[in-house]
């Protein structure tokens, strides 16, 4: 086969583009996106992400527009070894969808926008500034980390009394009624599973932040509808969004001061 100069240059150019594009494409499509952070650094405990007060802003408009998308839920439940028992009685959930009228029943009213009323609203642990679950825990298995405000879980210490499940006004906590391990589809070795008799919930991906990675849900969201950042930093993206948009929180009247904000 004879190749003239023109063709040769075309092929070389295309090959170069292809080679350069492969890692980027893999980062967007494959599981590598869960391993490499935005700056392209290798995840390492040497360079963690830190903040004075972690918070999340969820753009519900963007989220609702992606009808039936469960990418954030799948990503979270995969990396955290969340079991699927296949029945709602035993269900374990870290992040899930609730209809707007249930998630925000204080804001809901009879004549509310019909589309919004049943809109699937993303909910998870609010990492409250004044967390009622922490107050009731008899063993301090759950506590608020003073340095960055994350409401942590220590599964070594949880005795399964379920006071926190009752205290949480958002239903963010699930109890392991059965041994979860046989019900985990794909074991993820970087994160422990739980045992029967402990309570679990979202931890703002504390273990990923410690490696310099954004939370799994934030990374997985194709619409960038979830924005995670430092509430104490006036120049952060979350503060920018809170400044420029009207935002609501779940059940503000309870005084728990949730740190998940919703743009509606």
């Amino acid at each position: 086969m004879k190749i003239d100069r023109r063709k040769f240059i075309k092929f070389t150019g295309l090959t170069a583009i292809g080679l350069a594009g492969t890692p980027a494409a893999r980062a967007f499509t494959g599981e590598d996106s869960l391993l490499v952070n935005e700056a392209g650094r290798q995840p390492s405990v040497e360079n963690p992400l830190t903040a004075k007060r972690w918070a999340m802003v969820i753009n519900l408009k963007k989220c609702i527009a992606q009808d039936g998308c469960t990418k954030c839920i799948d990503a979270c439940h995969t990396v955290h070894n969340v079991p699927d028992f296949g029945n709602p009685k035993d269900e374990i959930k870290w992040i899930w969808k609730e209809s707007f009228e249930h998630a925000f029943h204080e804001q809901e009213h009879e004549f509310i926008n019909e589309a919004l009323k049943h809109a699937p609203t993303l909910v998870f642990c609010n990492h409250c500034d004044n967390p009622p679950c922490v107050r009731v825990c008899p063993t301090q298995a759950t506590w608020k980390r003073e340095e960055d405000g994350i409401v942590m879980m220590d599964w070594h210490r949880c005795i399964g009394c379920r006071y926190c499940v009752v205290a949480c006004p958002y239903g963010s906590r699930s109890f392991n009624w059965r041994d979860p391990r046989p019900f985990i589809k794909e074991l993820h070795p970087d994160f422990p599973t739980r045992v029967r008799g402990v309570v679990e919930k979202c931890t703002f991906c504390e273990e990923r932040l410690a490696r310099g990675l954004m939370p799994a849900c934030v990374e997985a969201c194709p619409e960038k509808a979830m924005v995670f950042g430092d509430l104490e930093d006036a120049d952060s993206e979350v503060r920018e969004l809170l400044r420029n948009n009207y935002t609501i929180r779940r059940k503000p009247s309870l005084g728990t001061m949730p740190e998940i904000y919703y743009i509606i």
Partner: protein
Amino acid sequence: MYDSGKVITGIIVFLIIITFPVWYNVARGKANYVPELEYPVDTGRCVADSAYIRAYHMDLLNTWRDQVVREGIRVYRAADGRTFEMSLSNTCMNCHQSKENFCDKCHDYLSVSPYCWDCHIDPKELKR
């Protein structure tokens, strides 16, 4: 003493029965049994010297657990200045290839049952 013959015979029979496992193992030549553990191919890289690890690995792991979970400290600085991520699954099990022939074998021999692996995952076990 009444019936001293019967009582003393009884005591001797009792002692023989109660020490039976010891005699049995001596008779079978297993008195000096020590489990043979599978050590990492690449030795000398452990976070501490083996005498310390042998005696205090459970304390070390408990300290690691508390520091990682409760205090958010994840980097362990060894006595000789090397740094490690404090992680059972990722640091220890990187070198110790076999949970069955290392952890379990010794724990079984000593009849202790730590519950580390109820939650933590042995990465090698996963591949099988």
